């Protein structure tokens, strides 16, 4: 269970909600209303007042790297810290199933990332995010660079992750995808919350 308790993000009222294993919460709202910032705050990538618990343990009770190994934020535009895909994975990790589930079984992991298509890189980012098996996935527009078959394939892949018991929070502009995946929805308004200035820590 992932529990968010009075999490304060500029422009939004303090948010409290829960997502259980095997559930997917879709966050909806107009561009710039704070969807990405909410995901980043849950992953503790931005300072935000409030509490976030995973299985009853507050994030401050563990180191931030350990928290982010469990609560994995997947950015809409993945960035890479090494030249090839392989350099992003631990040597022992088995990737075959993840790669083939996303239609990447033919991909040469030693090819420079700059030679891959945007869509291949976005699916590869999901493989990277799941390689160390985090219980929570925070997905920001996971299919924004994908079209047709690959978008559907990725959607099914995420569905499978939910069914397998992962906790998923999804930000997406794709209404069909939200219909297919979400077990609950959180609607954020585009209007800035009036008292947000007071509740946000410096």
């Amino acid at each position: 269970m992932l529990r968010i308790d009075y999490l304060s993000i500029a422009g939004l009222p303090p948010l409290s909600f829960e997502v259980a294993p095997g559930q997917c919460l879709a966050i909806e709202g107009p561009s710039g209303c704070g969807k990405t910032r909410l995901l980043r705050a849950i992953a503790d990538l931005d300072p935000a007042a409030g509490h976030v618990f995973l299985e009853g343990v507050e994030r401050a009770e563990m180191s931030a790297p350990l928290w982010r190994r469990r609560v994995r934020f997947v950015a809409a535009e993945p960035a890479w810290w090494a030249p090839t895909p392989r350099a992003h994975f631990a040597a022992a990790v088995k990737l075959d199933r993840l790669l083939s589930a996303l239609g990447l079984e033919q991909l040469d992991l030693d090819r420079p990332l700059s030679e891959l298509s945007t869509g291949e890189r976005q699916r590869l980012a999901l493989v990277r995010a799941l390689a160390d098996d985090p219980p929570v996935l925070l997905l920001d527009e996971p299919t924004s660079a994908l079209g047709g078959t690959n978008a559907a394939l990725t959607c099914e892949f995420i569905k499978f992750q939910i069914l397998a018991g992962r906790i998923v929070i999804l930000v997406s502009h794709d209404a069909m995808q939200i219909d297919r995946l979400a077990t609950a929805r959180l609607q954020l308004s585009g209007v800035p919350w009036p008292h947000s200035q007071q509740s946000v820590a410096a």
Partner: protein
Amino acid sequence: MSSGALANGDLILAACLLAINGALSLAFGLRLELGLAIAAIRTAVQLAVIGFVLKFVFAQSSPLWTAGVALLLFSVAGYELLQRQQRRFKGWWAYGFGNATLLFAGGLATVYSVAIVLGARPWYTPRYLLPILAMVLGSTLTSISAVLQTLTDGIERERGTIEARLAHGGTRFAALVPLLRRALRTATAPVFNVLSVAGMVALPGVMTGQILAGADPVDAAKFQMVLMFVLAGASGLGALAAALGGVLLLSDHRHRLRLDRLAPDG
């Protein structure tokens, strides 16, 4: 000519060479003569002022005077460091961080070289302390500003990469080490270059000055070596302090990137 002090007339003779430059400018209509005259007068005034101030300070027995001039040198260097930074830290840190690294690296290298290498007694003898402090601060300043430039530029440009590493459970040090390495390389490469070409292209200034003042050339070379090692060491120390401090300032204990601690561009 004899070694030792120059007469005022000698200065006028040297200035005649400058006058030739001025005449050339006039003859060819380069319109540089006014700038040249101002620059020459500035040189004369500035150096004369420094000469008289140092003479006065050396003549005082009170270390307070020495401390006062040292403080002045530190604040001028700190101000210059701030001027060279394109992206500054917010608030107090903008001035404080640069000054702290200057004080640490410059102070340590200066006191070490005056007290232990040159063996001046007492260690705060202004004749040794102040010239060395000025040189050390000058070279430390350059490497600190190179580190800060690389660090603040890079952290903004590579934000996505750094945060990807953090998001995948990396510590702030793992995420920032590539940038840290690059900043240190950028800052120290010129220092090593200076060491490797010393004496090849031109005689270093201190050595030339000592030889002209009548010192044995081998002694002058040794003195130059000591100075260059001290300057290079101080630059490296300053670069390291600035790089580590910068990384700590631009991230926090929860291993987050804190670009909000940089002031807006300008």
